[in-house]
């Protein structure tokens, strides 16, 4: 048997099959799973009051954060591609946040954006602006997470930069000879050339959005003021404030590991699998209309 097949079966096939099996059981992690048919799915689609909010939050983060991240990374990469001096320095500066561990970065953002003691609101106040409540407000908690996401966009930015620098010089030259201005060159030369990279970053971004967990988990717990291990274990801060950061994977974690309801958590993960797969296929099908592969044979 080929080694990849062993790896595939052990690390992917087995967990997948087990997840599907467990989704039809009641499994509390401690006693053996009991078959309950579609009861978990019925609860998921009919009764669970938290699923709707979690799906909405997840769609929000995908719909807002992914396009903004792609545009922001593209914009920064464009500027860096044109810089004449200090290119190495600026590339490092913009890439650096991507190296920060997500937990540390989130802690830092919750501190910076603390409405009472954080430096951001203190500076805003000195400018005469009443700063928002950031992670403490259900309306601002997701935008705060988007800010965090934009700050750490270095990985996509570096791929965009490589693609932009890789665009064939002669295409720009001939476009210029044909009288194309900078905007037209961007629209008709740069964008088509880097379209496979845009597709890549959109797909990766959407999948990351569907799995959005660490930042939401840390931000909710820290902003709710229960960061210490001595905190009351019965308080559930996931989704703080008002369920606004309860993303689908956070809900899945809550059921699996806080409520000992791994059977139901598995049903949630099977749905996530189906949705992730469907969205990915849809994006790739749709991409045929706008992605240009230079070496592709039609």
């Amino acid at each position, binding site marked *: 048997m080929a080694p990849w097949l062993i790896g595939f079966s052990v690390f992917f096939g087995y967990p997948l099959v087990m*997840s599907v099996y467990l989704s039809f059981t009641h499994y509390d992690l401690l006693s053996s799973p009991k078959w309950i048919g579609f009861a978990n799915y019925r609860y998921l689609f009919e009764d669970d009051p938290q699923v709707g909010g979690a799906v909405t939050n997840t769609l929000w983060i995908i719909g807002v954060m992914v396009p903004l991240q792609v545009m922001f990374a593209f914009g920064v990469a464009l500027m860096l591609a044109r810089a004449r001096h200090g290119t190495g320095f600026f590339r490092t500066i913009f890439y650096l946040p991507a190296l920060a561990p997500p937990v540390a970065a989130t802690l830092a953002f919750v501190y910076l954006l*603390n409405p009472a003691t954080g430096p951001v609101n203190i500076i805003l106040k000195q400018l005469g602006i009443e700063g928002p409540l950031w992670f403490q407000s259900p309306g601002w908690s997701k935008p705060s997470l988007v800010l965090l996401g934009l700050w750490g966009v270095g990985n996509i930015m570096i791929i965009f930069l490589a693609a932009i620098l890789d665009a064939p010089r002669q295409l720009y030259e001939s476009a210029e000879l044909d009288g194309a201005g900078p905007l037209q060159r961007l629209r008709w030369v740069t964008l088509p050339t880097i379209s496979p990279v845009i597709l890549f970053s959109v797909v990766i971004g959407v999948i990351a959005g569907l799995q959005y967990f660490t930042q939401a988990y840390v931000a909710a717990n820290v902003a709710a003021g229960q960061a210490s291990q001595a905190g009351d274990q019965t308080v559930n801060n996931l*989704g703080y404030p008002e369920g606004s950061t309860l993303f689908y994977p956070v809900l899945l974690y809550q059921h699996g590991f806080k409520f000992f309801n791994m059977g139901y958590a598995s049903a949630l993960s099977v749905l996530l699998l189906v949705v992730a797969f469907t969205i990915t296929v849809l994006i790739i099908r749709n991409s045929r209309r706008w992605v240009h592969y230079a070496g592709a044979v039609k």
Partner: protein
Amino acid sequence: MRRVGIGLLATLALCAAAAGATARTSAHAAAKAENITIWVGWSARELKAFKKIVAEYDKKHSDVNVKVVGGINDDKITASIRSGNVPDVVSSFTSANVGSYCKSGAWIDLKPFLSKDKLDVNVFPKTSQYYTQYNGKRCALPLLADVYGLYYNKKMFKAAGLKGPPKTMSLLTAYAKKLTKRGAGGSIKVAGYNPFLGFYAGNAPDLSAYAPLYGAKWISGDGKSQLSKDPAWARLLRWQKNLIDWYGYKKLQKFNAGAVDEFSASHAFEIGKLAMMIDGEWRVAFIKDEHPELDYATAPAPVDDAHPELYGAGYVNGTIIGIPKGVKHKDQAWKLLKYLTFDPHPLALFSNAIRNVPTTKASLNSPEIKPDPRFKTFLKIFANPKSKTSPITAAGNAYGTLIQAFTVKWQAGHAGDLQAGLKKLDKQIDAQLKQAKAGGVP
């Protein structure tokens, strides 16, 4: 090429979802034959105190060598039980999980040991008996309890001309208004009493600490949620919202964001930014350690104006301790467990050290308990027959999450009609309990 691309991306998507469902496991070093291991949740100062208690046992018993591991949570407990690599004695702060531990047999039944040694669990108050069993199956015993009462700053009371603690909720509101100090633009400099759900342990958003003060009943005789049927819940929520509105929701949010972590020396009550609060008995030791100069007193928490007879009762919860299945030194584990939970001597010593409430009726009056009027309040609340804990259900305390989802919206003014909201909440909790019981789980 494109097909390969689709395949690759689809695989990525599949892996992503599968990873979410893969359970975590963690290994823990097995206890050696001559050693027995006990896992506890305490850390830092409290862990040190517990180690001292165990060291005394160790000295008296030459057949064992007890190793204490601190900082344990329920994730680690379940992972160890699933891997079969368990400590000999295990304890948890989350008494709501006793349902899972007992019904699954993950913590072994203690009845045979109790009968063999002719020990009666009636030495513990009813509340502690309740949160250490599930459906009559006793898989745990109580090891010190947490009891909630009122803390108030005497200096601030004197300055405001107030004498003695408030005994009803309407008085609590009146006192809170008198004691609050505002800054520029109405910002809160000192809060008389902060009723914001989610602010410190006394304001747990599942309302657990408030329920006994209103005599509010969670579940009806037939096991259905009755938050909309028992009018006490609506009274409690209306009282809370009125006080929130008096402060201004956003102003309180800002005050909370400026108050640091509740288990740090800059706790709002300890540094004089909060005049009254409902908190657990452990705060007495924290204040002694961090701000011994603070001039404060304790009392039972104020109660519903409609039920003055409830005064003196409070919310009770506690640490549970048991023996995990797959244990290697069962008899030695039981001996240690028995010593820690039944013997008044270690209970008194540990209670003195960390100022948690000792859990047997005899130990409450033990001459070894260091007298302290501030702490004595909590011993009385614990012994009060009207003191209550929250219900233990097949879904653990998952119902608390649904209650919390509603109450935090309610205090923000986003919940709409209260009665309709509570009715909906009842339905949600009933559906959740039904789901948790699916598969014939009791």
